[in-house]
């Protein structure tokens, strides 16, 4: 593999890993704070991508009609922000309908409920919007920069940059604000902290809202990078991001992000070196190996000292 190819794969892997990292963050936060797996998260990613498509198509349409003319980058920023807000509402609805009634139930039941909500989202999309694949409108012109012998498109830059920005923003929110402290406290002890006056329901809603917003951002970026959307796109990426979240260690946010990037790197480089049909096989074998050697992920604890219901 030449250096040029290596660099190309490297940038691809950074972009691909950004999607996994953003979605895995949602899984990891919900798991760390609420001790349950939200299997509907991949489909929230899909919902975010579709909402982003509708908003950006609408704004682009308004621009061409001359009603509200905005430059491309302004439409992009507006789309991302609005999409994140709207999808966080979807996430909050999912929490309210599916997970709050099951707060005290065994975790497997909540997992099944999540799975079913995911199926409802997928089928609802299919029923409402039809099976035709949708195209994401082009918001920013693709400019290819030539740095020496290598070529990089600006979309990759923007996606990776914005993803890292969002992850840093989340990290700062959790480290420095009062609500972030409340979330960390809930993750530390699920039973006693509500007795100290931390509103459990609000924290749950906030967790889901943040996770869904990140997934929506991932969906919008995915739409920019690969402009074809279909109802089942969340399924495969969602499950792989779930694997990344566990690989990073239970409840660890930094671990989830790192593991997401690692998974992206493994997949892209495996597809580059070996025949691409063997990609899933080898990538998952590597993951199986990592989990056999270090069963609790990168930053997970070998046992949990936390009290659990």
């Amino acid at each position, binding site marked *: 593999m030449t250096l040029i190819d290596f660099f190309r794969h490297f940038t691809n892997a950074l972009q691909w890993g950004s999607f996994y990292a953003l979605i895995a963050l949602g899984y990891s936060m919900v*798991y760390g704070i609420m001790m349950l*797996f939200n299997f509907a998260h991949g489909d929230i990613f899909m919902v975010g991508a579709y909402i982003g498509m509708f908003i950006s198509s609408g704004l682009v349409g308004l621009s061409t009609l001359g009603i509200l003319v905005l430059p491309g980058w302004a439409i992009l920023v507006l789309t991302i922000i609005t999409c994140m807000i709207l999808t966080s509402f979807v996430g909050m609805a999912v929490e309210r309908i*599916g997970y709050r*009634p*099951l707060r005290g*139930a*065994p*975790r*497997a*039941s*909540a*997992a*099944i*409920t999540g*799975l*079913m*909500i995911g*199926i*409802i989202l*997928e*089928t*609802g999309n*299919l*029923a409402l919007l039809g099976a035709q694949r949708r195209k994401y409108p082009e918001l920013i012109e693709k400019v290819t920069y030539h740095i020496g012998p290598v070529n990089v498109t600006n979309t990759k830059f923007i996606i990776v940059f914005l993803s890292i920005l969002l992850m840093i923003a989340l990290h700062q929110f959790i480290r420095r604000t009062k609500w972030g402290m409340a979330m960390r406290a809930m993750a530390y002890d699920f039973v006693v902290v509500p007795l100290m006056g931390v509103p459990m329901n609000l924290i749950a809603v906030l967790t889901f809202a943040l996770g869904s917003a990140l997934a929506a951002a991932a969906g919008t970026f995915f739409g920019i990078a690969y402009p074809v959307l279909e109802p089942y796109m969340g*399924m*495969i990426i969602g*499950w792989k991001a*779930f*694997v990344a979240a*566990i*690989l990073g260690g*239970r409840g660890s946010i930094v671990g989830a992000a790192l593991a997401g990037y690692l998974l992206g790197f493994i997949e892209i480089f495996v597809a580059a070196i070996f025949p691409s*049909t*063997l*990609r*899933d*096989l080898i990538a*998952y*074998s590597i*993951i*199986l190996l990592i*989990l*056999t050697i270090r*069963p*609790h*992920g990168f930053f997970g604890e070998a046992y949990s000292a936390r009290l659990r219901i």
Partner: protein
Amino acid sequence: MRTRKSDASGAKTGKSSALRKFGCYLGQIPVLGWLLGSLVAVIIESTLSYPLARSLGLPNIPAIFGLRLVFTKPLLIPSALLFVFIVYAVPIVLVAALTASATNKLSGLLLKKFPMVVPVVIHLVFLYAIMHVWGSINDYRVLMLSFILVSIILTLSLNLVNGYMGEFSCSHPGFMALGAYGCSVLTLIFFVNDDLFGAALLPQAWGPFLFPLCLIGGGIVASLGALVVAIPSFRTRGDYLAIISLAFTFIVKSLIENLEVIGGPRGLMNQPKFAGLPIVFVWMCLCVWVCVNFTRSIIGKAANAVRDNETAADAMTINTRRTKMVTFLLAAFWAGVAGGLFAHIIGYINPSTFGILKLSEVLAMVYLGGLNSVVGSIAGAVGLQFLMEILRPLAMLKWIVIPVLLIIVMIRRPAGLISFTEFKVENIIRPRRKKER
């Protein structure tokens, strides 16, 4: 204390008492009586009911008790109800009630004088006869029954791991795929002149007799695959095992897609249709028998102990490694058998059948029916498959109704509808004597 509705003897009067008396009366009919009644009903349906259906305005004998007509032709619902009442409800209740004393005495006699095998086999023969006659109307019913029986085997095998041992295992589609491919490869090598594997090595006539060996071979392949999941399970539990089993399913699917020698993404076809309804029924009975005995055995109880508290179980001298290994291998074996039967019912398999959708379906069956109970697995499998068939006219909306139903069940009863129940055959087939007047 007398309530308003009681009379001097303390019995409730009014409409509710007639219904109660009827219910009490029906409760005294043993299972053998109900089986006899059902047999008479399906015989009536298969021989005499077509003119009745035509005269009621139905185009043909309704396939699933008229439940699908609710969606396709709602106007025919009254006639379908009448048909079901006349052909099913009346003969079943009549025959069961009239023969109640005879069947009570017979059940009692069989239970007392013969070893347990005899009454069980008699009941199973009746059950199979009912299915056979019911299915003789059209092939669709036979196919549906075969799939239901295969789902029962699959659900039971998953319940062993998820319910009795408490591991959230996502690996069953992988086991089923391994079993289906293993069994199909054996059948294709030995009995079919095929492009992939060359001429048949044995005469086709031997096929139905050696088919059980092929099924067992497929099950063994699936069990060997289960080692990949069982060995990491010694070190981890819970969530990490879920990931390992999920990775296993992806790996199996990817492996099959990449092996051109067994067809790759195009799948395998031309499997001979060895899995008729009697064969599938016999294997289902074997599976229920083995699984019930497993749950009652020491290893089954050890699996329950491992689920409840692994450290305590280890301290109580349970060999947790052996328990996990045996449970995983047994579950994988039966999932493999289910896969092999599935492959030979329709004669075609391809790797995309055994993906995330199949995982969702099989998890739904287990959690709908109930964890840690054999009756729950059977009920969940039958219920979900029936529901999928009944809702078929709704096309895509089927996949909204079924998840909503499952969410409601999960919210109300998080462990499933019929969970943590023992399967006592004696209680099921015992005579229910009339009370002394």
